């Protein structure tokens, strides 16, 4: 009975997540052609130009940082972390949706993931790349960043493994590595498809090398599927652990506003929330420009909207708990911190955050709203901003007003803080534009599988 029901819904899904009347070939044709064509869409060129410009801003800002040192930023004592760590947490968070879509949804056998997992994973990689910059840039002596890795140094000393920052080193590098593997493994059969499709001899060789000589053998597929499933199985706890550990950066400290046990889970929820917002931000224009409406259907957007709504509520619960515990604890410092956010010095930021992350998504309860691209896009934008504000609230307001009033001081970002923040968008989109132009942005073989399933409804 239950199984039958599942089958039914499964069937529906197949219908709604793959529009048009596609064959194995047509799918391959449609997707590969985006890569194999010689022409560059003007939209693409324009976007890429903008991205490169921003990327240049990043290079200038970083250059300035390395020549004039970290004092050019707005940070101070007490506020030792500012835009650097805010951006770090924000970018890492965005990454999480990718892994979630490709890994967790795979485990749950959610067919609809198929057409979005590839670029979602790419998004993860690029977001992590942006995030990974900051732990290095935020050092007073960035040239010594490698001291955080455990290698036998001439000092004879080692990293200090009790530090959450050290956990970050392992978490983030593991996350980056595994995401890259996951992405590449998924890419191998498609590279083979490109190899077989392209007429250009050079490209043939290139793709041939990149796909490691893939030949679609049953034996290979057999192991391939197991490995892919295992990776998904590993990626799921990994993605949960990464943002939990980021949460621990704060939770393990004693700073009022950081020292909260709820952080790890609510950081994870926030990450997925932010990630899906970003996926929508990217998917909506993509399907339009490359006419992928058949592959990225309204059903996908609808599902993503639902996930956003759900995680948004989780995050909201996080805020509520944070506030409640602050007062319930009866702890003088926690209460003062919370008052600062609710009615005090930092109230504007806090309520802006509530509007963006808590109120804005509520509109997604309505199916109409979920079906309306404009509304969906605006909500996604709100969430992107809101999640950044959340990190600002957590990091800056807690540090600026902690235990000893004599040391209280505010934080104001400088032009160089902004430069690096905007610059990371440059890096992200530069990579992303290259990706959509030179790599199949939708998994060909998985789509063909989908076509197969659609045909036979199993």
């Amino acid at each position: 009975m239950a199984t039958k029901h599942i089958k039914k819904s499964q069937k529906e899904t197949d219908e709604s997540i793959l529009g048009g009347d596609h064959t194995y070939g047509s799918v391959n044709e449609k997707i590969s052609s985006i890569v194999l064509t010689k022409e560059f869409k003007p939209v693409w060129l324009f976007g890429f130009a903008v991205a490169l410009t921003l990327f240049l801003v990043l290079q200038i800002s970083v250059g300035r940082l390395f020549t004039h040192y970290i004092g050019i930023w707005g940070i101070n004592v007490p506020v030792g972390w500012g835009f650097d760590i805010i951006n770090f947490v924000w970018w890492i968070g965005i990454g999480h949706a990718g892994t979630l879509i490709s890994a967790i949804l795979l485990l749950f056998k959610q067919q609809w993931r198929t057409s979005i997992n590839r670029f979602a994973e790419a998004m993860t990689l690029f977001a992590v790349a942006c995030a990974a910059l900051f732990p290095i840039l935020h050092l007073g002596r960035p040239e010594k960043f490698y001291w955080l890795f455990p290698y036998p140094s001439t000092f004879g000393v080692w990293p200090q493994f009790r530090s959450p920052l050290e956990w970050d080193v392992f978490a983030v590098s593991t996350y980056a590595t595994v995401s890259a593997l996951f992405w590449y493994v998924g890419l191998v059969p498609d590279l083979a498809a490109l190899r077989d499709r392209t007429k250009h001899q050079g490209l043939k060789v290139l793709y041939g090398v990149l796909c490691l000589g893939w030949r679609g053998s049953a034996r290979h597929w057999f192991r391939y599927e197991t490995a892919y499933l295992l990776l998904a199985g590993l990626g799921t706890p990994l993605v949960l652990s990464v943002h939990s550990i980021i949460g621990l950066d704060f939770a393990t400290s004693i700073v009022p506003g950081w020292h909260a046990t709820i952080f790890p889970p609510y950081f994870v929820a926030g990450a997925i929330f932010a990630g899906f917002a970003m996926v929508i931000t990217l998917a909506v224009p993509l399907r339009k420009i490359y006419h992928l409406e058949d592959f990225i259907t309204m059903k996908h957007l609808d599902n993503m909207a639902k996930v956003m709504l759900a995680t948004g509520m989780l995050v909201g619960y996080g805020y509520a708990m944070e506030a409640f515990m602050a007062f319930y604890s009866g702890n003088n410092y926690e209460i003062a911190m919370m008052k600062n956010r609710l009615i005090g010095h930092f109230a504007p930021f806090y309520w802006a955050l509530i509007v963006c992350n808590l109120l804005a998504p509520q509109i997604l309860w309505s199916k109409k709203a979920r079906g309306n691209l404009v509304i969906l896009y605006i909500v996604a934008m709100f969430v992107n901003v809101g999640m950044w504000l959340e990190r600002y609230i957590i990091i800056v307001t807690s540090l600026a007003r902690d235990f000893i009033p004599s040391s209280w001081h505010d934080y104001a970002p400088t032009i160089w803080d902004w430069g690096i923040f905007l610059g990371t968008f440059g890096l992200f989109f530069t990579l992303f534009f290259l990706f959509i132009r030179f790599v199949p942005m939708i998994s060909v073989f998985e789509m063909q599988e989908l076509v197969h399933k659609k045909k036979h409804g199993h």
Partner: protein
Amino acid sequence: MTHDEEEKLYGLMAEFDTPEALVQAAERCRKEGYKKMDGFSPFPVHGLPEALGLPRNKVPLVTLCMAILGALGGFFLQYWVNVIDYPLNVGGRPYNSWPAFIPVTYECTILFASFGAVFGMFTMNGLPKPYHPVFNVERFALMTNDRFFICIEAGDSLFELTRTRRLLESLKPHGVYEVPS
């Protein structure tokens, strides 16, 4: 055809339009007693491994071993560094503050396991492989697009060119091709 021509042959290949046909073909050939054969498809075809009678694959085992290695290695690194090689009084915490060592141990576990899964899979699949005879068949290039192939290798004890060809043709393939090695 002569004996040494057979020597240069890698096997016989049959092309099908649908995965179902491929699975049936595989089952049939297996019944005939063929062992050294392989199917080729643009995407994983369900039932094909069973039809070909493939053994359990070892990827999960390798992954498990690597996971255990990662866990032990990760914790030992921290233990050795903090307790044996260079003990330091850090905020009055004991040298072996194991609860603080859990996250890194955890990450190492996952990292190694993933390596196990991916590189295990590639090695056992014998990838990367710069050259393989099946590519000598012209139409094989269409496989990744929408074609399905089965190939019986000449190395199989039962392989006998004419008889095997008859068998494959009896499966109403799109075509049967010799695969030069």
